[in-house]
């Protein structure tokens, strides 16, 4: 059997149903073998987008996303998408072609040291050197991607390994002796966390992306409800708890909600669950939750104490940790006594939960996001680009279910949202998928319109169009004396015609009523719709905590109104 045939057979063995990619010279044998399988291939128009599609697919479904590219430029283009997935711990297998083993390190055509590059942006990078190693490698890649702290894994496939024929064994399972999954938490460590909780007067849960990745959201909700603990999230944790739940405070951070940012500074105990305390969440660390003990739960032991000092750490699978906590609390049948704290939580939440702050016009992104929430069924999926659009979505779009809010949190990759939406649609064709976009980000990967039309994967793109790189412009307004450097676009494409030229629909709206109508129409369409929404060019995102500030320094407007 050839290495290429063994490769696709091994992919089938992992129940891969879709691959996002672009072929090229050194991956052709695998592409040829794909024709003999039932695996769907979705043709991207840029390898970065292929990786974002696999990322969106994985985040929406909880399965391992698969993307594929050729050697050299295929591998370097795809690297941005894989790095994006790595920063947000998406389970993914990224496949690249490679020049034949006997040509390596001779600067062959389209040769790049892919393993050298991908080692730094994946949990592991494999390069099988014989066809007989291929099935083991594929199995190991899926195992590493989907266990412990989930992550992209890279497989570099030399051309002669694809074409070579030999006897090829297919293992049923793999063991990797240098790999620890850290699955079971130490029950004593969990019990200590419970003690700390019961001793506290003003506890808060900070839920991160790990809660969603680890499938721990149902247990989290049960735990929070049974103990009456308010839940703030990180950006990546949006969806860990329904944001309309009375205990839900929304996200903490640079563009966190007023109630979450305030309460994180008033709490005496943070149960941090599956968070990595990104600098965009903590802001200036010396002023972060100064009165709180931090109890940090994570599957990755290197996260404990990495960015903030943890008073106590519980290493292990989050589901098991939460289950143990619930069991221990059940045995003790003790309840926390934090009545006055809950009163404070309720008061702040009521004041700020629905409030729109700092907008210049009634035709603003927050208003549109509220309309979208009203019109979209709860299990609809929303992706975002990166910049102001993303932060408005973080603040004003209430996520009701896990895996329905997909954004590039760690790497902040512009151009992520649209291909990620297409990938999410491939995973969940049954639900509407919306990309909340800005015009700057959308231009980076808008060629994915071709993929979405060709593959019958209709999504809705809402372009909050300020004809500029809005987030940088916002910072230049605030911190650089309104000196605009390279942020204002003077050549702006007609997004309606652009969409139509790809066979998609395009519509431009100028009022909230028009927006409502267009959005409702697009939900019924079976083709991708781009809704171009020209917004006030100086509309900024508030609440905002400026760079270098602490979460106490919340700005509500450009004029410096605080709270």
């Amino acid at each position, binding site marked *: 059997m050839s290495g290429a045939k063994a490769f696709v057979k091994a992919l089938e063995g992992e129940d891969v149903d879709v691959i996002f990619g672009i072929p090229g010279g050194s991956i052709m044998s695998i592409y040829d073998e794909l024709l003999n399988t039932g695996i769907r291939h979705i043709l991207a128009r840029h390898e970065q987008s292929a990786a974002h599609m696999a990322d969106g697919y994985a985040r929406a479904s909880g399965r391992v996303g698969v993307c594929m590219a050729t050697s050299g430029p295929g591998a370097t283009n795809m690297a941005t998408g894989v790095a994006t997935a790595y920063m947000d711990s998406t389970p993914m297998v990224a496949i690249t072609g490679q020049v034949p083993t006997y040509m390596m390190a001779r600067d062959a055509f389209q040769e790049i040291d892919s*393993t050298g590059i991908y*080692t730094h942006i994946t*949990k592991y990078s494999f390069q099988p050197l014989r066809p007989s190693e291929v099935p083991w490698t594929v199995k190991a890649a899926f195992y590493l991607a989907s266990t412990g702290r989930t992550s992209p894994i890279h497989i570099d496939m030399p051309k002669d390994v694809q074409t070579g024929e030999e006897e090829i064994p297919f293992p049923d399972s793999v063991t*990797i002796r*240098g790999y620890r999954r850290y699955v079971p938490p130490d029950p004593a460590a969990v019990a200590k966390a419970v003690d700390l909780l019961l001793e506290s007067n003003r506890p808060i849960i900070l839920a991160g992306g790990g809660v969603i990745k680890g499938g721990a959201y149902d247990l989290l909700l049960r735990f929070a409800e049974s103990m009456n603990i308010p839940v703030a999230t990180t950006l990546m944790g949006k969806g860990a708890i329904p944001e309309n739940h009375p205990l839900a405070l929304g996200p903490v951070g640079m563009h966190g909600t007023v109630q979450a940012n305030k309460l994180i500074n008033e709490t005496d105990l943070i149960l941090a669950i599956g968070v990595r305390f990104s600098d965009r969440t903590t802001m200036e660390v010396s002023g972060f939750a100064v009165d709180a003990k931090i109890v940090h739960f994570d599957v990755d032991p290197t996260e404990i104490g990495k960015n903030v000092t943890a008073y106590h750490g519980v290493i292990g699978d989050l589901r098991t940790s939460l289950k143990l906590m619930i069991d221990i609390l059940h045995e003790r049948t003790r309840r926390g006594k934090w009545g006055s704290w809950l009163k404070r939580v309720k008061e702040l939440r009521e004041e700020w939960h629905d409030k729109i702050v700092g907008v210049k016009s009634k035709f603003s992104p927050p208003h549109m996001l509220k309309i979208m929430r009203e019109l979209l069924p709860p299990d609809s999926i929303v992706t975002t680009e990166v910049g102001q659009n993303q932060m408005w979505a973080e603040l004003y779009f209430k996520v009701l279910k896990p895996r329905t809010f997909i954004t590039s949190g760690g790497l902040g990759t512009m151009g992520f949202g649209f291909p990620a939406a297409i990938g999410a649609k491939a995973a969940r064709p049954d639900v509407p998928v919306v990309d909340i976009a800005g015009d700057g980000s959308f231009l980076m990967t808008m060629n994915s319109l071709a993929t979405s039309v060709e593959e019958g994967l209709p999504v809705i793109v809402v372009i909050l169009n300020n004809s500029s790189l809005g987030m940088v412009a916002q910072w230049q307004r605030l911190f650089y004396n309104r000196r605009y450097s390279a942020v204002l676009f003077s050549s702006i494409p007609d997004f309606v015609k652009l969409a139509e030229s790809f066979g998609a629909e395009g519509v431009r709206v100028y009022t909230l009523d028009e927006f409502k109508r267009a959005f409702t129409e697009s939900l019924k369409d079976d083709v991708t719709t781009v809704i171009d929404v020209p917004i006030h060019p100086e509309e900024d995102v508030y609440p905002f905590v400026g760079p270098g500030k602490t979460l106490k320094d919340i700005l509500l407007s450009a004029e410096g109104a605080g709270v």
Partner: protein
Amino acid sequence: MSGEKRSIMYSLLVENKPGVLFRVASQFRRRHFNIESIAVGITERKDTSRMTVMMYGDEQMADDFARILRRTVDVLSVDRLRPEDTVKRELALVKIEREGIELLSELFDDGRAQVLYEGDNLVVQLVGEPEDVDELVERLDEEKVLEEVVRTGVVAICRR
């Protein structure tokens, strides 16, 4: 987070295959830690190598780093080697000028130096605790007879 910086030693068991040293070294590079010394060799098992790594840092860094190394796929085990229960040795080959031979017997009458080659130059083997090797090399340099030094890096083993 910062405390007194001192020499930290790890003993790692790793897969004996290409790319492992690169993965381990990258963990140090990313965090701007200089590897003061690294020695790698095969163990009693063909598929397993032992790395002895030395760096400077405080206790917090030492703990964090042990966790980072443990998480690295292909690293089988990570042990901190504490000075109080570690036996460590380093070997150096030094080339010195011929006239250094008298000095040699005068300086090193305790067996720490052994002449391996005598010709126009001398090649001498120095063995001892890394600090001893430092000291011997320094003495030879002070006497202006030193031409070249090659060191193995520290190898160490836990007594217990």
